[in-house]
């Protein structure tokens, strides 16, 4: 029995020992669990922090608004640390001022300086003296917490920005299982974070600036392109005008001589007529000669008309009325096989154009349309306010204040080659004797004179449509008013041996409202000046063949002591022997010069 008792006692002891061992092991297990939990949590947090940081970095890469970056930075800090709140304090770089959101408050200069000088992140217990300036700052903007266990701040200081930022966060509670309350060992991380946000702000600023610059560049590029297009268009117009002028002069000259000859032929043919009274065959021949002469005269007249710079009277023309009036004549002209239809916009208004010119333009277009429809068809004249699509070229000029007149036919139409040469003088596809090739050249010239333009759309076999644009009377006056000049400023004489310069001067002065006489040298200029006693201005080069500018001026002053003179030269004034300038009347304009400089000099001598 005692043995048994002893055995039980032993067993009990063993059991106790086993229980104790088990308890020890359990303790170790719990301890291990705690350690594991702690390290796992620490690792998780570390990983999370890196993740949120990376996410933040990706996220703000495309953000250009500083406020957007700072907002996200704040949220990231809240996400990464156990913080009750984070306030982004804007510290003004110039004035002792603080900003939190919309709220801007002045602060004491000493505090401001401390905040400005805060260049490294900090993590301190709430009662640490280091927290005092930041708590004071929070209090200033009305955001102070009632109590703080841990205070943390991260300076974000982009250099040369008008404001730096202090991200100030705090925690009321002890460390949690889920997020770290900031601890001193987080300092390097916060420094990294602050640095990143700072760089992001700087780069956002740069991006914004770059974008602004590239937009400006693109804009000026666009402008450049537009003015290039404009230049090209003007150049083409200039070429066409020059060609027209040259050909006109040539044709005019020939026509003049021809006309004389035709007069001789015609009159002598008439003289012969009685002599062949009895000879019917000869009479018929004579008739043919006279008919041919008449037709030849017709052509030369047209040539003469083309060559002559026709006088233009600017008028306010009711386009619809003009078209209606003309339609009676036109109907007769086009015959019965062609249907004429007028589509007139009742709200069209008046055009600023010479009425005779307008008639001539329409006549030419209608005759061409008729010729294109030998077996009949439809002819349509339409008036309306111009739209963008009516423009001949793509020069970005507004169509406001333009009137469009379209002449459309259902005729043969034309191919690309024809369309390209359409407005060339003497270009015709019609048989000899039928076409002169001057109709559209005349239209072009007349529109040039009337500040209008013409465009064409055509398809072979379908027909053609010519669209004429004319300034409307209101539009024109409005446009004029906005362009400022020119009321007439009298007659200017330009003496310059260099053609290009003379032309430029003449154009500039014309644009500024002068009637301009051009002279290639001093002698020509003197002649012109004598012929025109109403001369109001002389612009002369100093060095010219035959008679120089100084001598010209000297002579003219004898006739017209009050004539204002602008001298131009590539030499400096000192190198020239002009004598003293009359400060009231004379100006010296050194070459090279711009139109604006010309205008300035002219305005100065004219005393206005």
């Amino acid at each position, binding site marked *: 029995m005692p043995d048994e008792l002893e055995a039980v006692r032993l067993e009990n002891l063993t059991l106790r020992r086993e*229980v*104790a061992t088990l*308890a020890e092991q*359990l*303790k170790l297990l*719990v*301890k291990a*669990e*705690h*350690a594991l*939990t*702690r390290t796992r949590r620490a690792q998780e947090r570390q990983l999370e922090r890196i993740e949120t940081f990376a996410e933040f970095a990706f996220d703000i890469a495309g953000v250009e608004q500083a406020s957007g970056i700072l907002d996200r930075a704040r949220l990231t800090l809240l996400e990464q640390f156990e913080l*009750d*709140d984070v306030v982004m304090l804007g510290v003004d770089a110039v004035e002792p001022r603080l900003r939190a959101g919309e709220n801007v408050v002045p602060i004491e200069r000493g505090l401001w300086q401390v905040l400005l000088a805060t260049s490294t992140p900090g993590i301190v217990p709430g009662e640490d003296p280091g927290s005092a300036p930041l708590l004071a700052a929070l209090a200033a903007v009305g955001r102070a*917490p*009632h*109590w703080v*266990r841990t205070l943390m701040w991260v300076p974000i200081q982009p250099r040369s920005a008008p404001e730096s930022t202090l991200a100030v966060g705090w925690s*009321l*509670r*002890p*460390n*949690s*299982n*889920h*997020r770290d309350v900031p601890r001193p060992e987080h300092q390097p991380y916060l420094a990294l974070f602050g640095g990143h946000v700072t760089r992001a702000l700087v780069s956002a600023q740069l991006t914004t600036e770059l974008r602004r610059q590239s937009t400006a560049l693109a804009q000026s590029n666009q402008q450049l392109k537009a003015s290039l297009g404009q230049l090209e268009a003007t150049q083409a117009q200039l070429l066409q005008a020059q060609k027209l002028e040259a050909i006109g002069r040539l044709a005019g000259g020939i026509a003049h001589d021809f006309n004389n000859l035709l007069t001789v032929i015609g009159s002598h043919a008439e003289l012969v007529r009685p002599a062949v009274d009895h000879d019917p065959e000869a009479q018929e021949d004579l008739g043919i000669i006279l008919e041919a002469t008449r037709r030849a005269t017709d052509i030369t007249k047209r040539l003469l008309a083309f060559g002559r710079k026709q006088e233009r009277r600017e008028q306010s023309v009711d386009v619809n009325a003009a078209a209606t009036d003309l339609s009676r004549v036109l109907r007769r002209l086009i015959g019965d096989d062609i249907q004429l239809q007028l589509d007139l916009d009742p709200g069209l208004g008046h055009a600023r154009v010479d009425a005779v010119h307008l008639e001539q333009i329409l006549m030419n277009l209608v005759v061409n349309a008729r010729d294109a429809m030998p077996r009949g068809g439809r002819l349509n004249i339409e008036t309306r306010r111009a739209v963008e699509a009516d423009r001949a070229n793509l020069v970005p000029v507004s169509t406001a204040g333009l009137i469009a007149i379209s002449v459309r036919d259902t005729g043969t139409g034309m191919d690309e080659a024809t369309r390209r040469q359409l407005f060339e003088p003497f270009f015709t596809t019609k048989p000899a004797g039928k076409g002169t090739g001057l109709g559209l050249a005349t239209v072009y010239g007349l529109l040039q004179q009337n500040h209008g333009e013409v465009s064409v759309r055509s398809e072979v076999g379908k027909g053609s449509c010519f669209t004429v644009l004319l300034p409307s009377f209101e539009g024109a006056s409005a446009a004029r008013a906005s362009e400022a000049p020119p009321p007439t400023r009298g007659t200017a004489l330009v003496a310059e041996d260099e053609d290009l310069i003379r032309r430029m001067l003449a154009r500039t002065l014309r644009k500024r409202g002068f009637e301009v006489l051009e002279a290639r040298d001093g002698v020509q200029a003197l002649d012109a000046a004598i012929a025109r006693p109403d001369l109001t201005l002389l612009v002369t080069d100093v060095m010219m063949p035959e008679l120089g500018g100084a001598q010209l001026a000297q002579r003219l002053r004898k006739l017209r002591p009050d004539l204002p003179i602008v001298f131009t030269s590539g030499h400096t004034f000192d190198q020239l022997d002009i004598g003293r300038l009359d400060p009231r009347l004379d100006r010296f304009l050194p070459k090279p010069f711009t139109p604006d400089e010309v205008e300035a000099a002219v305005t100065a001598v004219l005393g206005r």
Partner: protein
Amino acid sequence: MGTRAVATLSVERDGGQAGRQAARAAAEQLGGPADVALVFGTTGYDQRELTRAAHETLGQQCVIVGCSSEGVISGGESHEGDRAVSVLAARLDGAKAEGHLVGGYDKAPQKAAEELARRIGDARDVTGVLVFPDGLTGDCTEFVSELERRVPGVLIAGGAAGDAMTFERTYQYCGREVATGHVSALVLRGRGRLEVATSHGCTPVGPQQIITAANGGWLEQLDGQNAWEVFKSYLDDGVVDLNAEGIVHLCLGTAAQRGATRVDEPMVVRTPMALNRETGALFFPGGGIAVGQPVRMTRRDPERIRKTGAECAHRLAGDGRKTPAFVLQLDCAGRGKILFGACAADSIVAPLREQLAPYVPWAGFHTYGEIAPIAGAVAYHNYTVALCGFFDA
């Protein structure tokens, strides 16, 4: 008609504004004056402004009782932070509410219990007493046993007032009065019935140990060993302080049954809130730490907290057969954000609410100690939820 209750919340920065906002919302939703309101606010607010605003808005006729806290619960939300106030307001039907604010709790808790019992007087029609004592001072264990002795058969529950884990000062509200070191109480009489269910979610991990030295809430020795040394033997080596991680990791399990010699379920879990680094003694506010008492180390288990919380709510709802007029959740401040992070409500409120109809008004706060009966006696718990339901029938 029955009791009509609403739970509202405000997180306004200003105490007056927050009190007014939450109270006004409650009055509006009630569609008439409230008879009773429970108000819980965090200590970021000026407590006087907060309670004055609530009192003015709810009106003279309304009995207001409440306290400061580490965080508040309202509806499905939990706000543990600087500034949040939760209001539970009700219009009673056949029930009567009275509020009491009793002083001297910090110095003489038994006396305070005696005084409260005196004020309650005839307790035959009392259907429940909710108490909100200071969570930093006073021996709550003594207080509740004395109160229970003086008003036998009356259900006593509640939660200890807190602050923002600064352990500096807590406040008790009654009417427009605010005090520290007091206990505020709501006494319900007449129709209706207060019920309470609890759960803690901890598991015992060590062998049973005996308290061999203790002094006024300070635990000095276990089995003759330094208390902190015993604690530390279960904690990772790096732990030097009783910081949050230590607190939430390890608790002390005590027997619910008074005088029991073994620690088994049902357990009352206790959490030390302070450490004397020199002596290694651990402080348990609320008292109830006595020499000769058996204890066991327990560890918290987040999964169990969710599961047993849900079970507890299910029990309160009579296994889904009963619907309370309102629910008051008194949940330990150590189980909220500190354990579950920003989404604490998902772990400690949602699983409980899911057991009841979604329209049941739900309010509460994060306590420094939970007061609820267990194993036939009222006890002071930590790391626990005390879920109170008021039923009309």
